[in-house]
């Protein structure tokens, strides 16, 4: 059985997003594997142990995104592939999904594709559904526990009212929730393997597709308006005088 787990590199969860000239800036926050994707890797590794699967981590990103893949390798993934191409700098989520789907097809024979529930930077949560759509495979979203039963997978979905049990035929796409369990720490053996691993880089030419046309543009990012409030304490000799001063202020501010 073959599992592909899609991981993105994002700023770490303590980073603060600010708008700089309408563009997002994360300051000098360290880049890490998207925290939600660690759960996806954890879920994939649980299946690897349960049904003897191989796990391939897949990422679209710049060269530096290798570190996110190395983290997945150190946790126990068997292989990693980076899709990187200068033409992919401005991707919308549908574009990202097309690229991921093409890479999954090039990897070949995947039975399951795991995603995080969303990224912590852009965070649309759309990519898993869009990949399922491109591949034409069923999507099971917000999955906690799962068991592979023959050619099907049975999952527990976390929904507002409680839990839902769902099944789907393989191959299938899953997005994974935190209830799958705390992501394991990388083992030192995994770390050594990851340190030495050569991670192939696939370009658009390797995937045999053109850069997807962009349908959504991120036009501008605005910080929330700064709150400009101040507190004034009205002092006077008597409660009546304070009340009078207060009424005058309220009228002057046109609150009433």
């Amino acid at each position, binding site marked *: 059985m073959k599992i592909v787990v899609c991981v993105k590199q994002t700023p770490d969860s303590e980073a603060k997003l600010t708008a700089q000239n309408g563009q997002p800036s994360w300051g000098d926050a360290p880049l890490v594997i998207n925290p939600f994707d660690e759960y996806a890797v954890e879920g994939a590794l649980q299946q690897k142990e349960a049904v003897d699967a191989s796990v391939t981590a897949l990422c679209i990103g710049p060269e530096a995104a290798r570190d996110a893949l*190395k983290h997945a390798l150190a946790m126990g993934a068997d292989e990693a592939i980076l899709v990187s191409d200068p033409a992919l700098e401005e991707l919308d989520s549908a574009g990202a999904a097309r690229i991921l789907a093409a890479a999954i097809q090039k990897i070949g024979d995947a039975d399951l594709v795991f995603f995080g529930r969303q990224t912590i930077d852009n965070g649309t949560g759309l990519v898993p559904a869009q990949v399922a759509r491109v591949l034409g495979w069923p999507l099971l979203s917000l999955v906690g526990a799962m068991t592979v039963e023959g050619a099907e997978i049975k999952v527990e979905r976390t929904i507002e009212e409680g839990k839902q049990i769902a099944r789907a035929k393989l191959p299938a796409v899953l997005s994974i929730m935190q209830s799958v369990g705390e992501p394991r720490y*990388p083992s*030192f053996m995994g770390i050594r393997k990851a340190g030495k691993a050569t991670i192939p880089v696939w370009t658009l030419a390797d995937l045999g597709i053109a850069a997807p046309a962009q349908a959504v543009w991120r036009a501008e990012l605005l910080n929330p308006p700064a709150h400009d409030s101040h507190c004034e304490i009205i002092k006077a000799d008597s409660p009546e005088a304070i009340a009078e001063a207060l009424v005058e202020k309220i009228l002057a501010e046109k609150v009433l």
Partner: protein
Amino acid sequence: MDFSLSPEQLMAQKMVRDFSQKEIAPIIKDYDRKQEPIPFMLKRMGELGILGICFPVRYGGQGMDYLSLGLACEELEALDTALRVAMSVHTGLCGMTLLQWGTAEQKRRLLTPLASGAKIGCGAFTEPGMGSDVAAMQTSARREGDVYLLNGEKMWISLAGVADYALVTARTDALAQKPSQALSTFLVDLNSPGVTRGNLHGKLGVRAGSTGWIAFQDVQVPLENRLGHEGEGFKITMSAFDHGRYTVASGATGLIRASLVASVAYAHERQAFGKAIGEYQLIQQKIAQMAQDYEVARLLYWQVGWMKNQGQRPTLQTSYAKKFATEASFEAANQAIQIYGAYGFSDEYDPERYLRNSRGAIIYEGSSEIQTLIQAGYALGEREDKPLRCELPAYDETFWQEN
């Protein structure tokens, strides 16, 4: 000169940091306050491979290099000294000394369970009547056929209450010409008949760690558990200190960092006379000193880690690193308390724990006075490193990682 860490070292560092943050940070204050060892600490550090980080895979270790050991110690003590003390005695004093002086058979039989974390080791040198003056120890080991009979008492031994094995140095030759030739070192199974032990209470610091005493009464130690030759105990003990001090130095570096990070956060937050206190130069001066000390301490222990990896003996460099980092960690914690004002005086905040924890390291594994003597000895040309019969092997990635 290459000061960059490898991807493996960076990942190892992050893993140890994540472990301390996730599993120890939420509970450390409770255990420190209760003065109780964290019950799952050694088990988890064993399972995660931290206790065996730098030993060859063939001996149950994780195959990382010696610098990674220092990096792990820095991360652990940035959280709490009790975590690092476990590394100092289990990995440093006990395991590394076995790696250096053990025969291949001893490494397979004795190092493997320690490196894998299945068994816990400690190092027992200090006695009620002596600490610094190693050659004056009184615990005796008398050979009778294929065993030694061990008698005496060791005191102030970290992990004494929980360890399975202790590396023990004892007097084997009452009549030796030079006191340093009178000693031999053994790996003693602490579950042997005749061993009694207990914990010490009322410590100033490292309250979430265990420190105790071990008494030996006619304890039989098999010949095959003697490390090195008879009479090599002094040299072996000095090797053990080289390793232990390296972990103390790198750990204390983490403690400086912890005081620095806490101080910076508080200096931004706390207002006095209408501004954040971090805007006052007198506070900035304290923070700059901590930042500088952190950098110096880190460079000093990295140098030791590098020398160990190369197969060079860093006794002098370890002494510099140990004395500098431990003293600077005490001063950093002291100044962090000052920056926190009254809150620094409360155990609701970390700096008072950092201060209490930092103090011991200026005494143990060779006090600052002993380090000064060592440094003066080298500087004055009275001391030089003569080759040892067994040197710590240089880090060899292939050998370390092969099964």
